[in-house]
Each structure stands twice: as structure tokens, then as C-alpha cells.
């Protein structure tokens, strides 16, 4: 069984510029004298560059449509949402995965709308008010998302 090269674990950090001056010298020396060390560095660089080269995943078009629907649903069920938040039980259930629960969490929906609609002034006053309302609820709740679960059931179906 071969003894691990003490510089081995420094190689990734070296690639990332996350080494001290002394460590940089150590790695530089090892690279200068060892073909194995150079090969190991090259292998690590391939892995690093592969991940860095992945680029941006495209935000799915249906995500945008779902967000718009969630915002719209939130507007039409504002009173119901407020009542549901007030009356929410504490059964510990997790909200359904997916965008529908955002209909009851219009603050997040408004955020997402802002995220995917890169305009500078597209959040109307009603949404702003709902953001504030959600913030107020969040400030007194440990888990406002779960509390909104009943609203999700009432306001939307599965994302797909």
C-alpha cells in the first residue's frame, strides 16, 4: 500500500487559490519534480472545469406560467388566505410540494414573479401589500409555510 502524497489534498485547494503561501510553494515544488503530481492536478482540473462549464440551467417556461397563476390565485383568494392563516391548525403536515402553495403565500409568488420578469417596476401596490402582510405573519410564526398548507389545497392543483 503506497503512502499518500502529502501534497495530494492540497491540489484542489491549489487550483482554487485556497492555499497559503507556504502551501503554494510546496505544491509548486511537487509539480516541478513529479509527473504523477502534474497528472493528478490535470485530472482534478478536468472535474472542476466540467462542473464550472455546466452553465445556467434554463428556467422552465411552465415555471413562469405557474408563478403567474399562483399570483393570480393569491389575488382572488386573499380573504380565504387570511382566514386560513388565522385558523390554521398545527398538524405538522408539510405543504404539498409544488407551486400551488404559493397561491397562499403571495409574498413568495410576488418575489418569484419579480425574479422571472426582469422589469424594473413590475410589482404593483397590491402585491407589495401582500408582501408586507406575509412578512407580518412570518414574524410571529415559526413555520408560516406549513400554516398555509390548507390554502394550497384550496387554490391549486399539482404543478404537473
Amino acid at each position, binding site marked *: 500500500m503506497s503512502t499518500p502524497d502529502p501534497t495530494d489534498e492540497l491540489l484542489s485547494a491549489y487550483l482554487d487559490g485556497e492555499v497559503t503561501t507556504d502551501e503554494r510553494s510546496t505544491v509548486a515544488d511537487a509539480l516541478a519534480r513529479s509527473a504523477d503530481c502534474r497528472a493528478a492536478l490535470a485530472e482534478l482540473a478536468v472535474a472542476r472545469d466540467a462542473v464550472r462549464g455546466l452553465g445556467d440551467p434554463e428556467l422552465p417556461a411552465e415555471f413562469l406560467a405557474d408563478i403567474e397563476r399562483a399570483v393570480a390565485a393569491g389575488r382572488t383568494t386573499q380573504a380565504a388566505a387570511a382566514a386560513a392563516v388565522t385558523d390554521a391548525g398545527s398538524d405538522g403536515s408539510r405543504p404539498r410540494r409544488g407551486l400551488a402553495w404559493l397561491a397562499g403565500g403571495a409574498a413568495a409568488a410576488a*418575489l418569484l414573479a419579480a425574479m422571472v420578469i*426582469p422589469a424594473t417596476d413590475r410589482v404593483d401596490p397590491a402585491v407589495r401589500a401582500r408582501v408586507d402582510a406575509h412578512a407580518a405573519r412570518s414574524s410571529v410564526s415559526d413555520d408560516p409555510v406549513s400554516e398555509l398548507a390548507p390554502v394550497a389545497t384550496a387554490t391549486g392543483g399539482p404543478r404537473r
Partner: protein
Amino acid sequence: MPDGVPTWEEIARDHGRFLYRVAFRLTGNDDDAQDLVQEALIRVQRGLERYQPGSLEGWLARIVTNVFLDEVRRKRRRPTDSLPDDPERVLPSSPGADEVSTVLSTHVQAALDALPEEFRVPVVLCDVGDLTYEDIAATLGVPVGTVRSRIHRGRKLLRASLGGERTA
């Protein structure tokens, strides 16, 4: 809002895609990435008052990573909550012959997905989130030396998975 602290809408508009990118690389699929972004944005809204101006994307990456890790822990505690396997999620659709970059991305993402979380998370935070080792250490609550080791081992595993010869 104090100087230097962006509004919630500004974060969503200007950094939402960053959140989605990190979330997608952590989860490997769109559905979970969307869920992560939603929950992360809610936590951003709840935590914005406590945000200290600095590395905003570092802060956001920390939030989305915490959401991801919370979800991983939740699934471990309650494995029956896991969604049933959906072949369409596990097996990406076959790209056309001319979509080389898509094929490569799919291959790399699959290799990333195959990494244990303890390696995948620091690798993604480093190479997708562009966080420093110190920020990653703070995010994960581990020493910087552990981050260094995990990134190194993660990259070795990745390289092997991508067709490299080194796994030790």
C-alpha cells in the same frame, strides 16, 4: 431598508437565477430546484432584516443550501415521504445527435448527482456558487480543512465518474 441591503424584489429579480442555478445543481432536477428556490426566497424574506451587507450571493447560497440540507434530513427521517421514482426525472430525455453540449451537461450533472451529499454540496458551492472555502465552511458548519478535503475527494470521484482513472 439600510444602505447596501437590497430589497426582496431586487434579490428575486437580480439573483433568482443564481439561486435556481445552485438549487438545480444540488438537486439535479427541475422540480426539486423550483421547490428549493421557493422556500429559499421565503427564508430570504424572513431573514432580510438580519442580512449584513457583504457577499450577497454567498448569503443566498447559504440559504438555498440550508433548505436543501433540511430537505435531505427530512427525507431521511421520513423516508415514506419521498416521491415515487419517476423515470422521466431519473432518465433525461435523449438529446439529438447535434446537442453535444446538452449531452455533456447531462453527463456531468449525472456524475454530480451520484456524488454523496457531503461531497456534492461543497463542490457545487465552490464551482457553481463560487463561494470561498471559508464561506462554504461557514455554510456547512465545518472547519475549512474539512471543506478542502471534501472538495478534493468530490472532484476525484467526479473525475472517475466522468471516465477518469483516479479514484484513490
